[in-house]
């Protein structure tokens, strides 16, 4: 057996054992001779690792598409027009999404810079109040650090005052800038410990509000955002919903041709289907007369009984059977007995 298959089977087994035990064992239990064991201590990290793994598969998919369809286009094989259209759509969405991501990232980075100042203001207070011995000589005195904070905040405020974007002209944004400036000026006048760090906290609170507001400010929509919206919302979303909307017509045609009452069972099934449909459509389209009102009050109740009692019983049985089948399949894949999953079995 090739090494790659052995590795796949090994990691499949280990992964299965971990998640099996994670589900069964209590979070903490006592092991004689070892003490209290916390199983699943690193579950969050494993979850993040699996997310990273799945993200890598996006790259794999991309590579496959480029190679597969690229060959068709380069050698002008049958269907090369469709492959070109696919590759063009792929390239355009990649580029536009990348630009969109960059723009969003710039917004959040701008907010992060303000939060950094906020954290610095709070850190000055924490370090001064810390009972642990700090590295003497490496940390500047409180007054000096506060003055650095004040200067940095003033520079950031000048930058933000020149901001141009959606909402930057709003009264709320300007009021916020003014209040941060006032808190900054107050700290500039008393940078020492006289205020017992109340001014640091006040400035930190205002910087927090400013950072949150900055994160919400949207840049003026650029060309790439408009194109992204046209391609994604206008084309992709619309085409996707249209494709599935077509199913409605096929169902109508299939229902007309195929739903025939040939036996008692099919008659029962048809009656149940009719009652369920009539129970959830707005029967008030028959008018708000007594007839319409009466139908509207009877069918939903009968429908609910049908779904709650016979349907639930049947579906529970189906779910149980399907779950047992899925469990058997899961065991087969866990122990790599399922031959189709990980490559061909060697012929004996």
């Amino acid at each position: 057996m090739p090494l790659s298959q052995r590795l796949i089977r090994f990691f499949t087994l280990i992964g299965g054992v971990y998640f099996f035990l994670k589900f069964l064992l209590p979070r903490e239990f006592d092991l004689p001779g070892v003490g209290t064991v916390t199983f699943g201590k690193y579950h969050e990290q494993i979850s993040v690792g699996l997310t990273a793994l799945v993200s890598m598969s996006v790259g794999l998919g991309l590579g496959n598409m480029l190679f597969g369809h690229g060959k068709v286009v380069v050698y002008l094989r049958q269907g090369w027009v469709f492959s070109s259209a696919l590759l063009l759509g792929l390239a355009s969405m990649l580029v536009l999404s990348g630009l969109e991501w960059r723009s969003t990232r710039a917004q959040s980075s701008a907010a992060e810079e303000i939060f950094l100042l906020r954290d610095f203001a709070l850190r000055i207070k924490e370090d001064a109040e810390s009972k642990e011995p700090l590295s003497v000589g490496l940390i500047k005195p409180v007054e000096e650090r506060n003055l650095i904070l004040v200067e940095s905040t003033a520079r950031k405020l000048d930058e933000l005052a020149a901001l141009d974007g959606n909402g930057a002209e709003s009264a709320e944004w300007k009021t916020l800038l003014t209040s941060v400036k006032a808190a900054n000026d107050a700290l500039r006048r008393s940078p020492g410990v006289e205020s017992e760090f109340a001014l640091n906290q006040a400035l930190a609170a205002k910087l927090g509000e400013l950072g949150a507001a900055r994160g919400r400010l949207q840049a003026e929509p650029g060309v790439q955002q408009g194109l992204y919206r046209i391609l994604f919302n206008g084309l992709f979303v619309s085409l996707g919903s249209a494709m599935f909307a077509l199913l409605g017509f096929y169902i109508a045609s299939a229902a007309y041709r195929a739903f025939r009452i040939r036996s008692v069972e099919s008659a029962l099934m048809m009656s149940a289907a009719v009652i369920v449909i009539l129970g959830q459509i707005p029967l008030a389209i028959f008018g708000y007369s007594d007839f319409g009102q009466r139908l509207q009050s009877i069918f939903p109740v009968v429908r609910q009984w049908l779904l709650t009692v016979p349907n639930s019983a049947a579906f529970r049985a189906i779910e149980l059977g399907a779950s047992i089948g899925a469990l058997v399949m899961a065991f087969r894949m866990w122990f790599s007995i399922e031959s189709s999953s990980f490559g061909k079995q060697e012929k004996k």
Partner: protein
Amino acid sequence: MRELDRRIIYLLVFIALSVPLILKVAASPARLQFAEKVFQSIEEQKLGRGDIVLVAIDFGPNSMAENKPQTDVIIEHLLRKRIKFALYSQYLLAQTFLESIPQNVAERLMREQPNERWVYGVDWVNIGVKLGSPSVNIQALAESKNIVEYLRKDARGNSLADLPAFKDVRRLENIPLFIQLTSLVGTFESYVQFLKRDNVRPRFLHGCTSITIPKAYIYLDSGQLYGLLEGVAGAAWYSTLLTKKFPGREPDDALLINTGLGVAQLVILALIVVGNVMYFVQRRRV
């Protein structure tokens, strides 16, 4: 008798769907008890300090006709009640809805009530799409000692710790209500199985497409699910309840879509009856 040409069937269905939409006929929907339970849950929900509601939007463009009206009415109710919520998804194609739906609903509410404001980061947060195995992600979220540290950032790249909506949110105990809106088979079961820890489990509400209603009922019966929006009919009844509670609200699309769908379903029923009548007549002749 000759069978009806399928093009006539398509035309009939097209007329049945489009006429109510064009004429803006919004018939009063059927009363659905489990949609009322969803409404009641949100209406009575009170958030403690550090609490937040989690809303999972796990649908894409293919089922937006049913799931989007459900999402609209639920998010509108949450925003009106000032119940802060976080949007989340396991499905990549839901990405566009995570941003657009709450934004559009908030703008609609601010037009209706010019003196009120609903702000991103304060009233709602978009956590974005979490790729990977749903069961692993959900379990990690449920067992996390600090949800903010586990999720870290929202979809816009802002640190969750800096957003007012996530202030003091720590563990699963801070999520009293979980709402999932999906058309995907199998995702709801992952939440039922894994979004819990010891004796802590949020109250579950669910919005599904018509085809998965029968499956959802077994969870209603067992109590694992508290309320259910049954397709667009559930959204329409919910919309009616919202209008009764907030009379000045702008009407949404749920009632229109529900009416169009109802007429189309009646046409399909009529076609089935016609088909069976023709079948029996032909059998008699033979």
